């Protein structure tokens, strides 16, 4: 097939920054690198990486295109879903625009129904993700991983060998290790940086496609932070340490982190996607059956679309201890039913078993609740 390699018609109306990211993406396309657009942490990125594709994250974090999306989708829907659909429809996101194939999974209801409409104007492939982690589920997911590989081979007219997949697994493991080493710096007390800075680095890393370069960059950054760490004179001493969990955050929803840290707290670890949830575990690169290893690793992710969802609790339990956490904040995107319902269980676990304060906040991509969020977070910090 022919890769998408021309700029969209609306290009001229974009600001400098957006134009630049389109140009960067275009240059990659001109070198013949295919783009595979993904939405979710469950996607085994190693498969598209094995054929030399750039894996681009399409979860949109800005409210800009929500009005366009609401022409087709209900208003009372998760902003992540609306915003993503809106960016696809308006050609305003370079990664959406240049994606030669967009891959979704049957995660939450809103997303899987949205893919049906997205497929009307973009090449979409949906993997059937089971909603539980039983052995039957694993068998299905493994088949889906292999079917996905076959879909890529057929769509891009290429062959993906087992050795290429193993190579990709090794590279991805090394990337995960480098990111983990970086965020593990936050185990230090006082923490060496604010949570908002940590988040920027983690989020930014998802837009770096040269993995080798990213690994090197992360290692240097980790070494630099370590060298400059000065616990005695740290301005961050004595801040209560917070774990953030819940829906994916980023972009506008960073306002919650800012409200916490402006009021004297310190976010030390993110359990969400784009934090530990997606980075914590590696794939066994030497497993006899590499597809089985991939399926196991990815199905294990503790997202609220699983029922039951013990792995989220397990991961939180470990992170709370390792990062000497004093309080837990859950950020839920408006109309995200799975995280919203699961918040009761998370509250019970945090306040009951771990004996720590917990608060959940529901928010969206607008800035209209900044004042209230600030009061709420300030009161929570006063309570810790």
């Amino acid at each position, binding site marked *: 097939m022919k890769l998408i390699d021309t700029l969209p018609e609306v290009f001229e109306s974009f600001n400098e920054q957006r134009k630049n990211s389109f140009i960067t993406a275009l240059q990659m396309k001109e070198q013949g690198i295919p783009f595979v657009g993904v939405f979710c942490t469950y996607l085994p990125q190693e498969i598209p990486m094995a054929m030399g594709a750039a894996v681009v994250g399409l979860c949109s974090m800005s409210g800009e295109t929500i009005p366009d999306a609401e022409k087709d989708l209900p208003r009372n829907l998760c902003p992540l879903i609306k915003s993503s659909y809106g960016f696809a429809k308006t050609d305003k996101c370079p990664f959406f625009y240049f994606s030669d194939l967009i891959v979704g999974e049957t995660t939450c209801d809103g997303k899987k129904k949205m893919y049906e409409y997205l497929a009307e104007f973009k090449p979409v492939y949906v993997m059937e993700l089971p909603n539980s982690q039983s052995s039957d589920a694993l068998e299905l997911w493994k088949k889906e991983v292999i079917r996905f590989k076959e879909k890529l081979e057929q769509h891009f007219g290429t062959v993906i060998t087992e050795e290429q997949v193993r190579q990709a697994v090794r590279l991805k493991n090394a990337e995960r290790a480098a990111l983990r080493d970086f965020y593990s710096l936050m185990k230090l007390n006082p923490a060496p940086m604010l949570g908002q800075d940590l988040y920027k680095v983690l989020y930014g890393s998802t837009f770096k496609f040269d993995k080798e370069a990213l690994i090197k960059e992360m290692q240097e950054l980790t070494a630099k932070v370590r060298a400059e760490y000065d616990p005695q004179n740290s301005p961050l001493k004595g801040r209560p340490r917070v774990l953030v969990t819940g829906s994916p955050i980023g972009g506008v929803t960073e306002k919650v982190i800012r409200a916490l840290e402006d009021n004297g707290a310190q976010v030390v670890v993110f359990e969400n996607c784009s934090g530990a949830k997606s980075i914590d575990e590696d794939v066994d690169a030497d497993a006899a059956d590499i597809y089985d290893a991939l399926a196991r690793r990815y199905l294990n992710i503790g997202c609220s679309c699983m029922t039951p969802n013990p792995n989220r609790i397990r991961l939180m339990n470990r992170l709370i201890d390792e990062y000497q956490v004093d309080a837990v904040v859950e950020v839920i995107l408006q109309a995200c039913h799975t995280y919203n319902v699961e918040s009761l269980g998370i509250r019970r676990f945090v306040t009951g078993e771990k004996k720590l304060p917990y608060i959940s906040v529901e928010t969206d991509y607008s800035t209209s609740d900044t*004042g209230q969020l600030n*009061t709420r977070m300030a009161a929570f910090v006063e309570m810790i």
Partner: protein
Amino acid sequence: MSCALGIDCGSTTVKGVLFDGERVVKQEIVFTRARPKERMAEIYSRLYTPAVCCTVTTGYGRALLPQADKTVTEITCHARGASFLHPHIGCVIDIGGQDCKAISLDSLGFVSDFAMNDKCAAGTGRFVEMMCRILDCPPDEIERLVSGASPVEITSMCTVFAESEIISLLADGCERGDIALGVIRSICRRTAYFAQKLHPEGQVFFSGGLAGHEVFRRELEGFLQLPVCVHELSQYAGAIGAALIGWEKLHRKG
């Protein structure tokens, strides 16, 4: 003799108190009327004496007084103020002008959990203001208006819809008192359900301006199924909490 000054700048009223380490020696209140900064300055100048060693502000306008030594959120202040006025309470409910909060306290009077409804005007003081306006009833006559009334059911969840509901009830010939009691019940029911998320226990303290109306206290008690107490200084609970925190700050320094 030294004093601490606490000011609570809410959306409807600004309250201030002077605290001398044992009791509230003076209090003042003015309507905010969209000028929080000016009103806070006014309260400050009315209460300030050279004996004031520490000023703490709270409420949504808390950042607007340059003389303040410290700002603390209304959650913490209401909790502190309430347990000063009524030791041994387990929960505080505050129906404010633009939000509504429920706070549960531990045995030492510290905040152990809280919930805030700040997205919607229903269940806040704004709902009551609207009711008073439509029913042409000054707030201090509410009690008289509802005495002996039998409440009509108000079904609208939203202030804007409730307003038109009240107007059509009037057009149907309903008594003003019956409608008023219906509105008050709907606010108290909503507030109680919302507070129940915190599983309150023991005595509940009702703070804020509406605590002055017996009918609100009584209805709240009915829906909560827990004893609800008020204090003549209920409306000043936030300001008192702020002053107490200021006093402690002063004394920790020695």
